[in-house]
């Protein structure tokens, strides 16, 4: 019975298991990128097996959770069984030797007090030098903390797994599209169609603004929000991409934006250069043309950013001369400056098409909605801490080199014979540098 138990523990602590688990995780990852990760509405035949194996949501499947739990157990057992040895090495009670160096130099007899000189040089290279029994010998050790590096990394991995677990079990994530002037307190969590979550506060969108580059790509967009808490107190906040805001444990992100149809436009109507009218219109609206009462103007479309050339409205003029359809751009001067001759080529873009009338889009008020993502992620902090631990552990493991140096010297008729012996456990280059430093300083 005891035998069986230690055998079982050996397996749980074995690296062979680690290799197998890491391999399985990689395979699950590969499956997860080739099998589409969305739940199909209906499954047929072979798909049924995949479905019941949860292959359509593999990163939240029982198999995946099982592997993560096994990995955690594996790390714990493995680290516990090996930590004592690593600790002895860290304390310097046990020396691990992978590389060896030996050099010998001769110094003139005038050089005195080699011991204190060597000791101080070693100290400068961060070696610890316990008092040596002999007067003609100094021994030093450096970089032993590197031995603890892997264990720091492993502890970090455990914290990481714990953090992701918290996130995926207790996290809440949802979306909401909100128009200017609207107030919401429900978000769609999207786990099932139409499922919503009610927030403990209300979000009111006062104003949404978007800036564009000259080529029409969005440069920055922001929502001016008012968050109204339960007790009716409210806070003002400006939300931008990459700058989420935090409210009562929830984070609100500027995820996207879009346009509702029908912005409001202010049109100026001219005959030759005399202004004959000014009117505010919306999409679908019809109005009589000033001074030509029988002629009707229909607003076919209002666009906030047509073909990346800014706001525009599409008008249709129905007169006894026939129907005239054209676009009126707000930034017509700019368009003409960069595309001279465009009006001759495309009649549809000419605001003077129905001469002698001439239309100018004086103001345009678009009807944006702001796409918010609202999230509560109790694991994020832990994951961040884990990341720092892991990176720290890796740096300790790989950028610190455990090494020892032993320097002995003896009088040889008319000079000192100094021998330098070094060993390193991980890489030899640091040791080599130390040795040449030492020799350089001793010889001069």
């Amino acid at each position, binding site marked *: 019975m005891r035998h069986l138990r230690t055998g079982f523990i050996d397996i749980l602590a074995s*690296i062979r298991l680690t*290799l197998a688990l890491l391999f399985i995780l990689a395979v699950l990852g590969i499956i*997860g990128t080739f099998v589409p990760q969305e739940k199909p509405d209906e499954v047929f035949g072979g798909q049924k097996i995949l479905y019941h194996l949860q292959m359509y949501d593999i990163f939240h499947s029982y198999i995946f959770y099982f592997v993560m739990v096994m990995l955690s157990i594996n790390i714990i057992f493995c680290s516990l069984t090996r930590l004592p040895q690593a600790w002895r090495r860290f304390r310097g009670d046990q020396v691990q030797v992978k590389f060896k160096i030996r050099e010998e130099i001769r110094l003139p007899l005038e050089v005195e007090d080699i011991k204190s000189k060597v000791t101080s040089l070693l100290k400068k290279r961060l070696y610890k030098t316990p008092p040596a029994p002999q007067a003609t010998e100094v021994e030093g050790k450096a970089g032993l903390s590197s031995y603890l590096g892997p264990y720091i990394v492993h502890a970090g991995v455990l914290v990481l797994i714990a953090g992701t677990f918290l996130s995926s079990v207790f996290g809440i994530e949802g979306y909401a599209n909100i128009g200017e002037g609207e107030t919401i307190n429900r978000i769609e969590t999207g786990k099932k169609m139409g499922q919503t979550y009610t927030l403990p506060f209300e979000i009111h969108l006062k104003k949404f603004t978007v800036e564009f580059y000259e080529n029409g790509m969005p440069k920055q*967009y922001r929502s001016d929000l008012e968050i109204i808490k339960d007790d009716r107190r409210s806070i003002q906040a400006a939300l931008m991409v990459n700058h989420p805001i935090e409210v009562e444990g929830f984070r609100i992100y500027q995820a996207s934006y879009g346009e509702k149809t029908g912005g409001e436009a202010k049109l100026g109507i001219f005959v030759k250069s005399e202004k004959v009218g000014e009117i505010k219109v919306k999409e679908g609206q019809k109005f009589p043309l000033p001074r030509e009462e029988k002629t009707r103007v229909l607003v076919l479309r209002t666009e906030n950013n047509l073909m990346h050339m800014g706001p525009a409205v599409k008008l249709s003029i129905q007169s006894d001369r026939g129907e005239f359809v054209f676009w009126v751009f707000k930034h017509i001067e700019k368009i003409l400056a960069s595309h001279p001759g465009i009006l001759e080529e495309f009649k549809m873009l000419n605001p003077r098409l129905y001469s002698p009338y001439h239309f100018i889009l004086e103001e345009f008020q678009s009807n944006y909605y702001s796409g918010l993502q609202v999230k509560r992620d109790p694991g994020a902090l832990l994951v*961040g801490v884990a*990341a720092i631990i892991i*990176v720290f552990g890796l740096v300790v493991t790989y950028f610190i080199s455990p090494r020892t140096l032993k320097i002995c010297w003896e009088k040889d008729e008319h000079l000192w014979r100094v021998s330098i012996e070094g060993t390193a456990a991980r890489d030899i280059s640091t040791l080599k540098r130390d040795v040449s430093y030492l020799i350089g300083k001793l010889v001069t």
Partner: protein
Amino acid sequence: MMDAKLLSIVTFVYFGAFFCYLLHVIFPGRWWGTIATWTSRLGFFAHTFALLIRWRLTYVFSTGHVPITNFYESLVFFSWSVCGLYLLVEARIKNRMLGVFSLPIAFLLLAYASFSPSVESTIQPLIPALQSNWLTSHVLTCFLAYAAFSCAFGLGLMYFIAGKESIISRLLPQRDMIDELLYQMIALGFVFLTLGIFTGSVWAHYAWGSYWSWDPKETWSLITWLVYALFLHGRFVRNWRGKKAAFLSLVGFACVLFTYLGVNYLPGLHTYLR
């Protein structure tokens, strides 16, 4: 654009350097090796200069950003890191053989960037989500990792060739040395990839509201990370050396390439790079 022109010249310099490294193998002796080293140093210098020009130009044509924000720029930076890291390694091990494997990688990446019609080289302004310092550190660390893995890949190939008895194999450094260097490269790459994944998560946390969303590129970077973790553990604890290690470095590099290029053909957030 001046930087792009300069870079297309650097492409030829890299090819020349590769050719010299090859000649160095065929006609051992001092000359070709020295020429090869100085050619690649010259190329690297011009490459660095071109990057700086482009960086400057982003302030003229846009709001200014470190030039690693689109596919073209990432190829250029990848190539730069491979060449730079190789030159460091060469100076450290005092052997030029790896040049035969590394320079062509730098050359191919840059040639693809400079001459493929599907790679857009103009400076584009940044959409809001990309305006983040975390993104810059993310891309920087990822490509340094990729460069280290590329060198490890070259070393892996070298290991296999060094095993066959031939004229070439006598010129190669000892297999033990290749093996050790391969390990160090992968360790270096692993540290940077870890940093790259974490900085990427921080960026995603601020930009998308989720530090990890299992999109294909994220998933593949994790797969790559797992493969190299497998390498490190197999090596450290089960003593996978030599052929096994070299083989894993090839597998790992295949994963790197898939993470970088392959996933663009799968849907996901990172496809903005296209």
